[in-house]
């Protein structure tokens, strides 16, 4: 199957072509699109490119003889490679250099990212390389250019790397629409998807194929043999396991010891504030001054690049990082992955563990460090799942209408389009396979004139119909605006953090430390302290140019709750944790304090059976509490909390507030929320009835800040709000009107507008997890177990210790948790 020069090259490296690499060649020979599912270190990328290299090598031989005959070689793009990270594209380009140079192939490989010079981009359009490596955003921009048909007409192959990380997101929608366009420009090109192991590959197989009007089309699939099973340890102590918190301070010496034992360790945490704290805690016990660095998305880009470069040089022993390093280029030296806190999902854990040891046949080594009791359960559940080869499934979302709006404008930038032809093309993209013509037309109308029932803007239209009835761009300037605003990654408005010397007035000078979300900064008062970029900082004031801070030696910084990289607990893992709690026969595997905790819970209250939802009520202080344990993640619990308190308010229970964590929701009220009869079951069935997802949800959404943020994101992606204008590149902070005000007016005057529909669709799976809440309410219907207790139960303690909270509107009450932790735990664990 391999041509001689390739066989020799493999041999010269001491390699054997792997079975999946040959299988991909086979599919290529038949012109088939194919999904390759393989673990890290499996030679996945080379597998994707081999058919291209072989084809180009053969064509090269032919072309050489042709050019001898006097014809010059016309350059054309053969293979397009798309990766979610530009760093990955650059790295792959480097890796392709070796086979190309060593086999002396005349193959031109180039990358195209935001960093590519304007001159080179220009040249790439006219004289493309054989292989172009780029990102979904750049593909969108290439397709929005009038020369796109010429550039792509000879395209043979598209390679989609890390497809599992792109599909089923807005970037995936953008990519799917781009691929649909490519199907029209280069009919018959084939696609190769490269993916980490996923629970259900069918959605990815669909993603690779143009979907027919009826039924569905799946690509071929090749599943590579799995590598060695990872070695996963869970740090645990039989003497002390914290009740709450996410910092694992108690385990820092264990973590330090693990760093000592490793060549290089990656230390993953879930949020940026956790990264900051962990970094500090580690340095506090870093007696041998090991080089340990910090890496997260809020740090200044130069600082991140420095850390990455030091890592590549092998100058670091450990990096504390967030999901910013979940994906990325291979660092050969990493031989240990340490995950602090909850794993959140089995697939995420596999991904992170895969960052250590890129050789397929050796086991990767990982250490999980749970920070509290529930996290101990979650770590065990995640390890069991990974070792059993089971992974989280993902809810498949429909393609976003906001992304579609961006694509429609981009399409018009390239050439006038026929609405029906574009509709058919869009429907062939799997996320949009069920798009209705009504929605499509509404999106086109939105792009053209805003799509308002009150047709006031027709004379300013962005799209107009030409003589052939095709939509054309009304003004060439719009193409320029499109290029400036394209893309579906919407950052929260950020504020620069500037460090100034003590004693100077806020706003004077200041070195930039990085950026933080505006909403975090806005909730600080001057004098508040927080940890950022590895230091404790004192907030001095917010000015137009940024947030000004000074360094302080106060060790008791307020812990920032800046949110970057917060993922919900996966549905699959939640299920496994629930099963673990419900199965006392397996508790012996757990550390002693956790066993004791569950046993006293069993004795004092009840351990819910699989499928049941436990609801406990008890008095404490002069409040009445209701605590339930859905294990559906904080987002879904917060939404549930808002809805329950609304309902309790109507029932005159005077709810005063609630707290939500990943596992439980606690509501407190002035009145007892259970009823005397039947232990309160009828009461709870009514309270948790699914119909709360109707009007209550709608009313709450109207006011919810999370929902308004969702609207803002949709409005920006759809192009209602522009981030940048030609000539004056505004930062998002300086947008001259507030998306909240637009939301209020639109909702009041045209509640069915397509952008509000896009927002609702987004909220279902995004920030608010409404879909998941709906599934949960349906699942527990008639399966609610109620316990009226005389005091707090062991299982309830972590929720009550949780600080994050949403106050019930109109009943603001600051007296939440005056009591100290010790008294609470003593009451919960008292067995008399």
């Amino acid at each position: 199957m391999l041509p001689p020069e390739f066989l020799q090259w493999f041999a010269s490296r001491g390699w054997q072509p792997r079975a999946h690499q040959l299988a991909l060649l086979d599919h290529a020979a038949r012109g088939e699109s194919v999904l390759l599912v393989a673990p890290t270190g499996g030679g996945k990328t080379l597998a994707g490119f081999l058919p291209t290299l072989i084809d180009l090598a053969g064509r090269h031989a032919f072309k050489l003889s042709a050019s001898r005959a006097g014809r010059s070689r016309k350059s054309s793009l053969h293979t397009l490679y798309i990766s979610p990270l530009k760093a990955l594209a650059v790295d792959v380009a480097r890796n392709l250099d070796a086979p190309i140079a060593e086999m002396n192939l005349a193959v031109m490989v180039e990358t195209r990212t935001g960093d590519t010079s304007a001159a080179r981009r220009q040249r790439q359009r006219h004289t493309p390389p054989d292989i172009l490596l780029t990102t979904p955003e750049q593909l969108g921009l290439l397709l929005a250019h009038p020369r796109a048909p010429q550039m792509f007409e000879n395209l043979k192959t598209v390679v989609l790397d890390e497809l599992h990380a792109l599909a089923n997101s807005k970037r995936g929608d953008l990519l799917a629409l781009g691929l649909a366009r490519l199907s029209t420009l280069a009919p018959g090109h084939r696609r190769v998807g490269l993916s980490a192991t996923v629970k259900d590959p069918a959605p990815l197989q669909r993603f690779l194929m143009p979907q027919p009007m009826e039924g569905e089309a799946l690509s071929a699939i090749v599943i590579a043999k799995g590598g060695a099973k990872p070695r996963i340890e869970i740090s645990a102590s039989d003497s002390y396991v914290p009740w709450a918190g996410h910092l694992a301070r108690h385990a820092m010496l264990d973590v330090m010891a693990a760093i000592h034992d490793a060549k290089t360790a990656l230390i993953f945490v879930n949020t940026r504030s956790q990264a900051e704290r962990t970094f500090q805690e580690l340095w506090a016990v870093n007696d041998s001054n090991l080089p340990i660095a910090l890496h997260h998305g809020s740090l200044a880009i130069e600082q991140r690049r420095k850390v990455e470069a030091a890592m590549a040089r092998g100058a670091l022993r450990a990096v504390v990082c967030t999901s910013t390093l979940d994906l990325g280029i291979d660092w050969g030296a990493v031989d240990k992955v340490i995950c602090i806190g909850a794993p959140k999902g089995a697939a995420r854990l596999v991904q992170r563990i895969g960052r250590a040891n890129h050789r397929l046949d050796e086991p990767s080594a990982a250490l999980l460090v749970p920070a509290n009791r529930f996290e101990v359960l979650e770590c065990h559940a995640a390890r069991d799942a990974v070792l059993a080869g089971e992974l989280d499934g993902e809810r498949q979302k429909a393609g976003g209408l906001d992304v579609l709006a961006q694509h429609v404008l981009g399409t018009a930038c390239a050439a006038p389009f026929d609405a029906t032809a574009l509709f058919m093309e869009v429907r062939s993209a799997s996320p949009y396979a069920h798009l209705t013509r009504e929605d499509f037309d509404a999106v086109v109308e939105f792009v053209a004139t805003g799509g308002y029932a009150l047709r006031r803007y027709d004379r300013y239209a962005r799209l107009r119909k030409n003589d052939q009835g095709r939509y054309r761009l009304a003004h060439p300037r719009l193409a320029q605006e499109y290029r400036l605003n394209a893309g579906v990654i919407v950052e929260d408005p950020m504020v620069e953090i500037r460090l100034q010397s003590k004693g100077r007035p806020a706003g004077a000078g200041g070195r930039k430390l990085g950026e933080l979300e505006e909403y975090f900064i806005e909730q600080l008062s001057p004098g508040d302290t927080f940890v950022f970029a590895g230091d404790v900082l004192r907030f001095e004031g917010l000015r137009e140019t940024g947030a000004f801070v000074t360094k302080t030696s106060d060790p008791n910084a307020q812990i920032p709750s800046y949110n970057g990289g917060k993922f919900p607990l996966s549905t699959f893992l939640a299920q496994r944790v629930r099963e673990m709690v419900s199965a006392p026969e397996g508790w012996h595997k757990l550390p002693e304090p956790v066993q004791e905790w569950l046993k006293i819970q069993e004795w004092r209250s009840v351990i819910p059976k699989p499928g049941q939802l436990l609801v406990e009520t008890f008095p404490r202080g002069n409040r009445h509490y209701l605590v339930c344990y859905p294990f559906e993640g904080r987002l879904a619990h917060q939404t549930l909390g808002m809805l329950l308190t609304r309902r309790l308010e109507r029932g005159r229970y005077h709810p005063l507030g609630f707290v939500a964590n990943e596992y439980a929701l606690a509501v407190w009220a002035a009145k007892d929320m259970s009823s005397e009869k039947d232990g309160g079951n009828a009461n709870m069935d009514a309270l948790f009835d699914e119909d709360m997802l109707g009007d209550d949800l709608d009313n709450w959404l109207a006011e919810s800040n999370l929902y308004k943020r969702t609207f803002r994101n949709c409005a920006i992606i759809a192009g209602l709000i522009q981030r940048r204008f030609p000539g004056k590149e505004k930062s998002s902070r300086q947008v001259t009107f507030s998306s909240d005000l637009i939301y209020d007016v639109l909702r009041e005057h045209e509640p069915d507008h397509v952008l509000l529909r896009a927002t609702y669709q987004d909220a279902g799976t995004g920030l608010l997890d409404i879909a998941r809440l709906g599934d949960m309410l349906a699942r527990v219907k008639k399966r609610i177990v109620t316990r009226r207790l005389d005091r707090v139960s062991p299982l309830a303690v972590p929720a009550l210790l949780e600080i994050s909270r949403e106050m019930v509107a109109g009943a603001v009450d600051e007296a939440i948790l005056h009591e100290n932790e010790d008294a609470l735990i003593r009451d919960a664990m008292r067995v008399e």
Partner: protein
Amino acid sequence: MRCVWNNDLLIDVNGETLLLDACGAAFSAAHSTLIFSDLHFEKGSSYARGRQFLPPYDTTNTLLRMARAVARHNPARIIALGDSFHDRDAADRLGPEERGMLDALAAGAQFVWIAGNHDPHPPAWLGGDITEIFRMGGLTFRHEPLAAFEPGEVAGHLHPCASVAKWGRSVRRRCFVSDGLRMILPSFGAYTGGLDVGEAAIASLFAGPFHAYMLGNSRVYAIPRRVAV
């Protein structure tokens, strides 16, 4: 957008008593005068000319809220404190319904249109008086506050907003600003953003302590400057 008449706040500005309505208007009972600032009619269509299609309902929304305030206070005079129109042609872009709503307001009260920087020459067909400065009792109305102190000055232009933070959350609202001698009104237009009272453009107008009167859903909250962020 809600506007419930309830718990309105009374304050003194240079000896005149003004009622601060939670919708963002001020009312002088002594002079039967209702004051709005920075209505910015047709801001939406102004952006539409640059092909950003904000919902075309801002003028209607603003007029509806004005009409509700007028119904509550039944004033003999309405002062629009400048920047009533977002740009020079904005008045020409009003739809027939919006003009009708405006005419209805004008029919029941004497309008005083103060010229602003966005609308230096409000169209004559509006009816009522068009002026740069209007004096009433101890108060002087103009669009943009003078840097020099003039007791009794009531102005707009700055779109003041204030934030209060507590329990890890913050609330930002439009507000009136006053130290008892002069006052800045919040902007009333549906799409008008705001400037924090801590910014020099606002804070420097007041030599001593002042209050931000923040607009709640149904009442106005008096927040001392040192509390507002």
